[in-house]
């Protein structure tokens, strides 16, 4: 039995707008994003859910807001931009993280300054501060969702955030350091940042190698092709990363003609099938 089939957009929206069953609302918010229901009523209902006060996690968080923010990132409706920016004021770390990720996906420049503001207190004299390094006491997370913030600034091409992003390359949390390398590459196209991610492909932990693979694919660092081919990870993921490289290379090729670089990438992909 597949619940995804039995639910319709109308049912999901009704479920989201009722107040009695919190579980149904939570699921409905996820569902509307997953199936990219882009109607005005879906978007408006999700925006309303960003201010929900009913659904509270034991830690005081707002689970429905988190899901609603994630969903809005997938619906391409720019009416969500301001309400998502407002989420940065929320006490819930995960709401801020979901909002930053959603704003990255919506690629609207109104998000730039609010994202930069989230890096307040994190960098002093080109060094990370304790505020940027220390976890919130008793919590598994830091003061701000730095990985999401930095990735968003990279995607939004915020060149004047370079000096704020660069120190994060030395952050002890690998995924934050990778996000910084990824953003720095997107902003400067200097190989040194791509190579940081290439070295990460040699890391001990499979999770981190996967993360580096996805980052390399996302930035289209073509010089990493051989290293991707040889990385210790699933071929499925390597193929996704290689696809990112290929798309990047093909867009640079002249006259719709396949370049030798593109052909080289496809030869590596063929071997991974």
């Amino acid at each position: 039995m597949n619940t995804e089939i039995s639910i319709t957009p109308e049912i999901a929206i009704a479920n989201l707008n009722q107040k009695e069953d919190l579980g149904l609302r939570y699921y409905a918010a996820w569902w509307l994003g997953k199936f990219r229901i882009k109607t005005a009523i879906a978007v408006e209902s999700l925006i309303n859910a960003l201010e929900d006060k009913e659904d509270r996690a034991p830690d005081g968080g707002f689970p429905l807001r988190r899901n609603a923010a994630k969903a809005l990132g997938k619906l391409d409706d720019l009416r969500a931009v301001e309400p998502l920016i407002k989420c940065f004021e929320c006490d819930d770390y995960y709401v801020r993280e979901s909002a930053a990720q959603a704003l990255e996906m919506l690629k609207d420049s109104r998000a730039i300054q609010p994202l930069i503001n989230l890096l307040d207190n994190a960098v002093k004299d080109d060094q990370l501060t304790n505020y940027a390094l220390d976890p919130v006491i008793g919590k598994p997370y830091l003061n701000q969702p730095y990985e999401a913030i930095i990735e968003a600034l990279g995607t939004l091409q915020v060149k004047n955030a370079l000096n704020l992003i660069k120190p994060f390359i030395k952050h002890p949390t690998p995924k934050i350091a990778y996000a910084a390398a990824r953003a720095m590459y997107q902003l400067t196209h200097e190989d040194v940042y791509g190579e940081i991610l290439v070295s990460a492909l040699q890391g001990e932990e499979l999770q981190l190698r996967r993360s580096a693979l996805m980052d390399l694919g996302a930035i289209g660092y073509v010089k990493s092709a051989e290293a991707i081919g040889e990385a210790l990870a699933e071929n499925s993921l390597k193929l996704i990363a290689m696809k990112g490289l290929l798309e990047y290379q093909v867009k640079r090729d002249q006259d719709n003609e396949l370049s030798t670089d593109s052909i080289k990438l496809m030869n590596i992909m063929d071997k991974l099938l």
Partner: protein
Amino acid sequence: MTTETIINPVNQLILAVEKAESAPQLLDAVTELANFQSPEAIPTLIQVLGYNNPGAAVAATEGLIALGECAIEPLLRSLDQYNYGARAWAVRVFAGIGDIRALDLLINTAINDFSLSVRRAATKGLGSLQWHQLPSAKIITTQTQILDTLLITINDGEWVVRYASIVSLENLYQAIDISHEYLLNKIEEKLKQIITEDVEIAIQSRGKLALKKIDNKEYLI
């Protein structure tokens, strides 16, 4: 001479696989056994496919592919006792070896399997079969059957299965005898359609490359 009967390295390597106590130990032992390339290792390597340890399964799969045809019969016999995960690894072995005895399994898997990476592997395998294993009278009917399959998998919802379909169409084109112009034209037409109609840049590009390789000339849109 006497030392050979006392110290049989394959048995030692097999024993190491059986006695491995952790995932890294198992991976090391399987890798060594696979690299040894002895047919005596086949039953153990086949067993490893069912261990639910992806690293070790990759090593065992590669070892079995390198061993080639002699791994096919024992692997086909094990299929019935296999769970889904182990069957998926077995399909990768069959696809890698390209043995005709696994043809029906590959066709069925390429179209119907629920996992995209298994469909991908099976689809890739269909383009690189050991044609010399077939009696010449059966070659063209088999190739037609495979073309029909690839014309289905080329519509898969997952880009990577479509990518594998193109690679296989290209390989199939090279394998088909030039007297069967109808089949060759059908492949070429399909590839021309893909380079303009598929939504993915990666697929369009691989289609162009395939056309370039089979025609040995430049393609411009």
